[in-house]
């Protein structure tokens, strides 16, 4: 029996898609049929025009495309008007010039994305022979850190304690005082890649906010340079924005160190098992690699973690993976200071862009392809 073919929903020009096609080619498989988000947003029938043959459907990120972002913003407008977040009407979205990295109404775009996911779900219902590698409903869950944090906690999986009852900056301060917490993360719950987040410290009347947001004259941007804002008015302004957009607020857990630097791990779960692990080491408490963090030494980490702590952390990752109907989930895992426990910080639906990693001679995408085929279809060759 021939292996089923792949359909990829993604941004055709993005390296996520080109690298996936490369991976198929290296496995001796035909290229995937690519359905670009841009076309899907303009023409919902773009997907249902495809025949109902045996196929594996991979959904990848919609980000890093201005045309797609604009379409999502337009689609999310109606829903956004009721939420109190920043809103831009469709005609003003249309008039916007591309400005790379600029933050434009993240909640509104997210609502547009949720709408498309619902549309996908309906499409898939009419295509019973397709095997969908990540269910749209699970992707929707993974794009809301408030949902995942509470879901995991309810199953006894350790997460950073969420701070409830925060509606604005004033209530944030009050709640921190009540809990006697000095530092919290404030993350727009639909953000990814450390966009729209801040580490807020408030203690002894002093405050600062460590953030990837850059406030420039022409607007606010996601910056590669993490900065610390200390000027009270600006702290207030940025925090206020994050909270109005709908944020997950949680205690900042002191991280374990490796070679003297704080670190956390990206654990890529594939088919329920930890398949790839990247150690993200940084001199800053925000460790994302594109923000200056570096890949740490996994062997050194394994040597530093007590064996039972490691096993428990991997078990938490497995339990998280089981809660999402997705072939792969990218989990952010931190070990607490001095390896006294671990926390699941978040999980990402599209957390598998990890170039230059290999295991048993397979890249991350090749590994996923193999697992997809062994789960749903014939093995290659």
């Amino acid at each position, binding site marked *: 029996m021939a292996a089923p073919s792949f359909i990829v929903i993604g941004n055709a020009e993005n390296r996520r898609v080109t690298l996936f096609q490369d991976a198929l080619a290296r496995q001796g498989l035909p290229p995937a049929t690519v359905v670009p988000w841009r076309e899907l947003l303009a023409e919902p029938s773009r997907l249902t025009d495809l025949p109902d043959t045996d196929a594996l459907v991979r959904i990848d990120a919609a980000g890093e495309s201005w045309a797609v972002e604009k379409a999502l913003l337009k689609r999310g407008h109606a829903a956004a008007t009721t939420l109190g977040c920043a809103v831009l009407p469709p005609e003003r979205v249309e008039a916007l010039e591309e400005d790379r990295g600029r933050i434009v109404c993240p909640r509104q775009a997210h609502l547009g994305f949720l709408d498309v996911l619902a549309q996908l779900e309906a499409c898939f219902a009419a295509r019973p022979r397709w095997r969908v590698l990540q269910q749209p409903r699970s992707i929707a869950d993974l794009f809301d850190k408030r949902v995942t944090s509470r879901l995991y906690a309810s199953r006894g999986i350790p997460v950073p304690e969420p701070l409830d009852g925060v509606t604005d900056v004033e209530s944030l301060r009050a709640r921190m005082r009540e809990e006697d917490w*000095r530092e919290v993360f404030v993350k727009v719950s639909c953000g990814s890649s450390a966009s729209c987040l801040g580490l807020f*410290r408030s*203690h*002894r*009347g*002093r405050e600062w906010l*460590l953030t990837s947001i850059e406030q420039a004259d022409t607007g606010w941007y996601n910056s*590669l340079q993490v*900065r*610390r804002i200390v000027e009270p008015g600006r702290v207030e302004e940025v925090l206020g924005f994050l909270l109005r957009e709908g944020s997950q607020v949680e205690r900042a857990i*002191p991280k374990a160190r490796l*070679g*003297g630097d704080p670190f956390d791990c990206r654990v890529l779960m594939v088919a329920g098992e930890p398949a790839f692990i990247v150690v993200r080491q940084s*001199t*800053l408490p925000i460790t994302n*690699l*594109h923000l*200056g963090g*570096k*890949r740490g030494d996994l062997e050194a980490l394994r040597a530093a973690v*007590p064996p*039972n702590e490691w*096993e*428990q952390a991997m078990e938490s990752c497995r339990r998280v993976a089981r809660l999402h109907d997705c072939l792969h989930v990218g989990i952010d895992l931190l070990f607490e*200071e*001095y390896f*006294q*426990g671990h926390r699941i910080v978040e999980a990402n639906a599209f957390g598998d862009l990890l170039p*230059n990693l290999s295991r048993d001679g397979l890249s991350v995408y090749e590994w996923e392809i193999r697992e997809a085929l062994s789960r749903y279809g014939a093995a290659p060759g």
Partner: protein
Amino acid sequence: MPRYEFKEGSSNKFWEITLEGDSFTAKWGRIGTEGQEKTQSFDSEEAARKEYEKLIREKEKKGYELVGEGGDDDEEGGGKVVVGASNPELEAAILKDPDNADAYLVYGDWLQAQGDPRGELIALQNAQAKATGAEASTAKRQVNAHIKKHQALLLGGLTKAWADEELSVEWHLGFIREARIAKKDYDSELDVPETLKKLLAHPSARFLRSLTIGMVDMDGENSYDDVTEAIAQSGEHPTLQSLFLGDFEYPDETEISWSYLNDVSPALKVLPNLRSLRLRGASAGLGNIDLPELREFIIETGGLPLSAIKSITSAKWPKLEKLEVWFGSDNYGAEGGVDDIQPILDGKGLPGLKKLGLCNSEFTDALANVLPKAKILPQLEQLDLSRGTLSDAGAKVLAENAAAFAHLKHMDFRQNTLEKDGVKLVTKLCPSVAAGNQREYEEEYRYSAVGE
């Protein structure tokens, strides 16, 4: 267990009660005596609890006052100095092999027999290390509660710094294994060198393995002289394996060049078994380095003086596996160049070196010219040239000598001044190459990534 006391006239009585499931034990007598005790059992837990609560209400009515939650161990009074038990012979057994749990457990038994709470901490932590799942979280809670309860003995004069989260410690089988001291904000009243002195003299830190010092001074010069002195004057620390001076965040806590390491050599003299030494800051003085056990040396600076380069190139560290040197910008005191690090390139005195970082330099292109033929290169597994001034021309030289680098497991070119073509060239040099976050390329104004 709650303890109640009644003092009036000649009356001087206590009453304690412990509820456990469907029974409770009451204990009473004159204060200062053991008194007598009696256990009563009931048909159900609820019945036991009802009777238990009724008795407490009766005692309260009679004028008994709650004086504490009790416990088998000695109560700690506020601010009272508590001295623990110690046994030099059993400690010597731990010192011989601080990674071996058995010697701790023997000492723990002895301490428990003396009624010293450190004994119970050793036992609790030993149980924690073996526990999994729900048991592990219970064990962790017990350990934390025990430390909090006996903080006067376990932390002594360090309690405030610990409560303020400016001293963080790792407890390992009853003793502090790792410690980090740092001012956290501008309003901090912490005296870092004083706290360090107390720590190094404290019985709990007898087997300290790892020490990290962050911000010392938020207002003026963040200098490490007094830290070095505190270490030097505290005597030899044979257990200390890892030292990190300058664990601050820059550029926002301080600039790397506003923090002064100055002469750290007096501290190194009392740390004969150091395996990892990491230093961050300006004006580094290293003296004659003689660290026979050192595996890892990292110095991060915006400007490395020539004298420090000379210390590094003539150091005695025969077991060194990783050497990472940030040279910095001549605007911030960087001196020296390729010629001055020739002994490193020749692998002189570095038989076990596997990871070499020549980072944050303004002579990265010159390095690219000499690296392909460097004698040290064949033995290396990793080469780090990050934060420097590597241009596309330098990348071209490396690419033309690609065979010399093909054996490497990892190369790091992050934050250089490469353009797209240069990034492409270096990416092919070995299987794992990091080349992200390149900086603006301006030939006339090239500078290392970290200066001020």
